């Protein structure tokens, strides 16, 4: 079970005793670069077959992601939910849990933010934090159900989060639909009311769409890093994730840790949903909003080697591709599915870096920490 993605490993995070290691890590940054390059070349075949010019397509993709300030802002806006939700997925993985339910938790967080954001008037310095907290807590509670069911009944979280996903999404679809209580009166579109201005995240540059959510996301990355690697709770989560028996033997309250891990993971997902509602015009929840972030964030988390720093990079990569897809379609007439193929290929080549190493003759580094994504899946629960 090796995860050698960005090669940011336990050894690097731990207080560094051997300074030489930093150098070897630097040379390994080549692997993802070459992996992305290889993925681009392979995907260019598909672009070519669709009758478009691959180079033109990639230039448009790059322009759409980084070409000008507006594109750059779009990239960052796309990165925010992926980063926060990706951290949530990663946190659960660290605790040996596979949270497929991020999509639903994100929806729940969005709706909670809408309810609180439209529920009352308050000064901005109260309303924004309260709305954010509502998103976090609702997502956490929703995810904690799966954690509780696992701790209490041993119900596998993969099933329960898939189920709670559907439940959340359908109830929310109902709540903004024809008969729903949250439906904005006098609107053809199934949508909620916009949250009050006091609950909206301020724009960092006035008029440029980029909202304070980016700061929240970065802060979340920092906090999760500290939580995982600098606190007792982090050690407990990771111990449970690495070896349940050892965790029990060490006197860790495994059940409590499982519920807490799920809650934290869901809290991040809920935060992502809340930030989306609070940061993006028209500041409400509507059908078709946020679709797919929950599943993309799984890919982001594993691509980022389930480490906050890695996720920062991988979410930026995915965000850039999502943002650039506009111009790639517009200028090069390449269907948007190419992005999905590209993301799959990148994930594959980055993960299966042996292919890349043998292709480009990059030496494998020695000694890395191993992270098991699927500890809880099988019999090792007991």
């Amino acid at each position, binding site marked *: 079970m090796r995860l050698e993605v960005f090669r940011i490993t336990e050894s690097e995070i731990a207080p560094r005793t051997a300074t030489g290691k930093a150098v070897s890590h630097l040379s390994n940054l080549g692997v993802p670069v070459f992996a992305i390059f290889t993925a681009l070349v392979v995907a260019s075949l598909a672009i070519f077959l669709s009758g478009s010019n691959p180079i033109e397509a990639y230039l448009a993709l790059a322009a759409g992601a980084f070409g000008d300030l507006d594109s750059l802002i779009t990239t960052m806006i796309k990165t925010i939910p992926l980063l926060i939700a990706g951290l949530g997925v990663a946190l659960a993985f660290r605790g040996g849990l596979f949270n497929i339910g991020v999509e639903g938790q994100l929806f729940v967080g969005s709706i909670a933010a809408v309810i609180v954001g439209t529920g009352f008037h308050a000064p901005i310095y109260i309303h924004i934090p309260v709305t954010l907290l509502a998103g976090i807590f609702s997502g956490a509670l929703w995810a904690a159900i799966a954690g509780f069911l696992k701790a209490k009944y041993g119900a596998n979280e993969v099933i329960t989060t898939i189920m709670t996903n559907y439940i959340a*999404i359908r109830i929310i679809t109902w709540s903004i639909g024809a008969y729903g209580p949250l439906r904005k009166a006098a609107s053809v*579109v*199934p949508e909620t009311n916009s949250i009050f201005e006091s609950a909206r995240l301020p724009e960092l540059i006035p008029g440029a769409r980029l909202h304070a959510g980016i700061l929240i996301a970065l802060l979340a990355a920092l906090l999760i890093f500290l939580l995982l690697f600098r606190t007792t709770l982090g050690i407990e989560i990771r111990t449970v994730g690495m070896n349940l028996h050892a965790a029990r033997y060490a006197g860790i309250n495994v059940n409590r840790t499982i519920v807490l891990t799920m809650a934290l993971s869901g809290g991040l997902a809920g935060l992502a949903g809340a930030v989306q509602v609070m940061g993006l015009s028209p500041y409400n929840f509507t059908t078709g909003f946020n679709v797919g972030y929950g599943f993309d964030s799984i890919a982001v988390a594993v691509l980022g080697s389930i480490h906050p720093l890695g996720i920062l990079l991988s979410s930026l990569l995915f965000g850039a591709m999502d943002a650039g897809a506009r111009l790639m*379609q517009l200028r090069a007439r390449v269907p948007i599915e190419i992005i999905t193929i590209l993301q799959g290929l990148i994930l594959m080549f980055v993960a299966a870096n042996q292919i890349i190493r043998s292709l480009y003759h990059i030496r494998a580094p020695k000694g890395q920490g191993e992270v098991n994504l699927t500890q809880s899946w099988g019999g090792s629960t007991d």
Partner: protein
Amino acid sequence: MHKKIFWKFFIALAATSILLAACAPAPSAGGATEEEAGCKLKIGYVSDVGKINDQSFNQASWTGVQAGAEALGLDSSCYSFIETADSADYETNINSFVQEGYNVIVTSGFAMGQVTRKVASENPDVLFIGIDQQQVNENFEPDPYDNVAGLNFHEDIGGFLAGATAGLMTKSNVVGGVFGCQFIPAVARYEVGYHNGVTYVNPDASIIDVYHPGSIDQCFSDSAFGSETAQSFINEGADVVYGAGGLTANGALITACNQGAMVIGTDMDQFLTLPEVKDCILTSAMKDIVTGVSDLIVAASDGTFQGGDTYGPSMLAPFHNLDSQVPDGVKTQLIDIANKLSTGEIDPCAPFQDSNPNTFCIPVK
């Protein structure tokens, strides 16, 4: 690092991609300037969440853009599309076309209505065509802009005609309907109209209407759900099945057809778009988006473009292969109903018990 071998690979890969690039037919705006000069009009299309080739709504819109461009003799580099993946991107996607200097921007789907109007008010020089978008302000009062044309349809009329056809053609007196998302007004209009249409001609018929219960990413695209539901209709004795709702409905139509029932399609003439059902499709409740969009694009080119709401015709597609099986009496009756609908004598959108309130019908008169 074995530099040599690495460079060999690098060069080989780079060469491959350049080769691919060189071989690629270059229909597109690669060498921007001179091609741009050849475009008297640049047309951009932004799809709703969902795929362009959904064999229904989005596809009809895109086909309309292509038809309009062809009518103007535009090169294929003069029109392009963006598929929307997330409703939060509507504005960004529309603005991308504005920034790239497009003159006519077509947006499809009621959900994009307000965003389209917003971008339009910021860019008075660009013409916008909004499909299924009523030109109203936030309080539902008509509020046309000069540079936005809303192309709307009376889906309830189309649905009513489909229902009348089903009600007249059924022998078992059981008819079914498979619908996409119930929270989408156009779908609700089809359903309510269909229900009323069946009841109008055949009050004794039992009508089974089923919506997909899922969210937007599922309810238009779950063809297996449609198929299974149609199967259960057949088990209940239904012999006419109507489908309105993208791929979900397509699944229902194909399965009902395979099981020997007659089917009725939606939006486009599905005799042409869904070849599997060509021997059992009675007709389709058409919403002629293609002609509507194409006409508006031509109008944008010759300066006759007018802002505000326009309503496209709602009609039935030809009976095609089943023409001989439709009695003349039925045909005349349908023509009669169509006339009454067009004068407003029949209200296709009348609510009934537990009917979907989400219709937002606009009366004909």
